[in-house]
């Protein structure tokens, strides 16, 4: 144990490890906050859909040789998030089908573009790292870390300021609308925030595993807690703890960062399920 702590202390002396921890924790925090809302609104897979959009956007940015692909990826993803949440209200294409359509097609387009125009010698390696997260969290620059800190502060501030509105809109959209709440505006806000989080999170876990970061903490917390506030707080804390553990384990054991975090999230979820089962058995 003490050997492990020493190893971790040794690693913490490197700035890139500290950057990775800061960014990892912030992204885990942000993605867990809206997780509860997205799961309850039956938008669990919006993370998946949007991350594929971001993947395609990154491929386009690569083809166009844009210096900073974030500037291109972010607006495209936000636009698609808005379209998706709009489609959720449209009766012709239901939310889940719309997400499936966008998710699959952007994935295909992204891969096609990479294949046709790629300048890199290791194409499948590139694709793999975009999908499953790469070592890019360990190669963050100071600017990227500050950008991530800034955006995270904005996301958390928005969430706290609009907490009661988000609750009202999530629990009963029709009631909220009939009592004069601007439901469309808040749905739009949720869409934009979620798109920002996803583009940020792609650096950490890659596009395939973003859904896990959004869904797992919320699902685990909902197993055990009864009020919206306690579920939200628990999922935020849980997500941060899992991300922190995951990053440290992956550094010490040199496993892939994204997969390690998700595996730990899964273990936490199973523990919470077990707790819930034991509790209800005891009550009976």
């Amino acid at each position, binding site marked *: 144990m003490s050997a492990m702590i020493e190893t971790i202390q040794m690693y913490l002396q490197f700035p890139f490890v500290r950057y990775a921890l800061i960014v990892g924790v912030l992204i885990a925090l942000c993605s867990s906050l809206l997780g509860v809302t997205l799961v309850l609104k039956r938008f669990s897979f919006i993370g998946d859909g949007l991350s594929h959009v971001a993947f395609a956007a990154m491929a386009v940015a690569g083809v166009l040789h844009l210096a900073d692909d974030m500037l291109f990826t972010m607006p495209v993803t936000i636009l698609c998030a808005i379209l998706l949440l709009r489609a959720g209200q449209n009766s012709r294409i239901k939310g889940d089908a719309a997400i499936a359509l966008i998710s699959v097609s952007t994935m295909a387009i992204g891969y096609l573009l990479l294949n046709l125009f790629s300048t890199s010698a290791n194409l499948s390696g590139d694709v793999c790292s975009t999908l499953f997260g790469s070592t890019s969290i360990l190669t963050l620059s100071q600017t990227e870390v500050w950008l991530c800190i800034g955006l995270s502060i904005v996301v958390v501030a928005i969430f706290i*300021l609009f907490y009661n509105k988000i609750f009202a809109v*999530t*629990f009963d959209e*029709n009631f909220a609308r009939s*009592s004069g709440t601007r439901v469309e505006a808040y749905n739009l806000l949720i869409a934009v925030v979620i798109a920002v989080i996803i583009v940020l999170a792609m650096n950490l876990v890659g596009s395939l595993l973003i859904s896990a970061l959004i869904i797992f903490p919320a699902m685990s917390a909902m197993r055990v807690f*009864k009020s919206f506030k306690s579920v939200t707080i628990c999922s935020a804390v849980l997500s941060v703890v899992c991300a922190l553990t995951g990053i440290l384990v992956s550094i010490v054991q040199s496993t892939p960062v994204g997969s390690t975090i998700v595996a730990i999230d899964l273990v936490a979820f199973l523990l919470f399920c077990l707790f819930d089962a034991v509790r209800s058995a005891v009550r009976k």
Partner: protein
Amino acid sequence: MAQLTVKDLALGYEGHVIRQNVNFSIDQGDYLCIVGENGSGKSTLMKTILGLQKPLGGSIAFGDGLRNNEVGYLPQQTQVQRDFPATVWEIVLSGCQARVGGRPFYGKAEKALARQNMERMRVTQFANRCYRELSGGQQQRVLLARALCATQKLLLLDEPVAGLDPKVTAEMYSLIEQLNREGVTIIMISHDIGAAVHYANKILHVGATMFFGPTEEYRHSAIGSRFLAEEGDERHD
């Protein structure tokens, strides 16, 4: 002036008209029941009054100092709500959302109002319980308390007793009657025609033939007596 006046209203969705020439008006303190066959447009009418859907023609006018966001709504329960992790307190308080306006958090006045309405609907003892663990009747009372936080003037109830057992149904009706006596205007969609003519002072029958008028008149009208007889028969089957 009437609290709510609906004139030549055309109902429907996506430009497809399902019902035309809906006319009625209610005053403060009225108890209006909307009856009619399934699919006749009752729920669409309610959603249009609430502003959840645009009218395809005609007009809906609020009067008597009532603004269109001062309408309390008791919707039919949705799937989302059945597994929503929220306490009774959080849900009732969310009814005050319209009063908070641009402010991010609830103040003392909103919390006092929520407590008062929980007392009124006798759900205070459940304040910290999880909504999804309550019985159907208790859940409806929680949602009524929330609706009362949004308004003291006009309540729209969409089949408030659907899925409740007879004893709880009777309790629910007497709660609604009590609110009506306290001066709250009630508009209720009901499949329970017996209860409708028992409690309401006005009836709106939506269907191929329309009827709007006092309950007594409805009982003796051609459409009313036929509908009462049909529905009565069904219940005895």
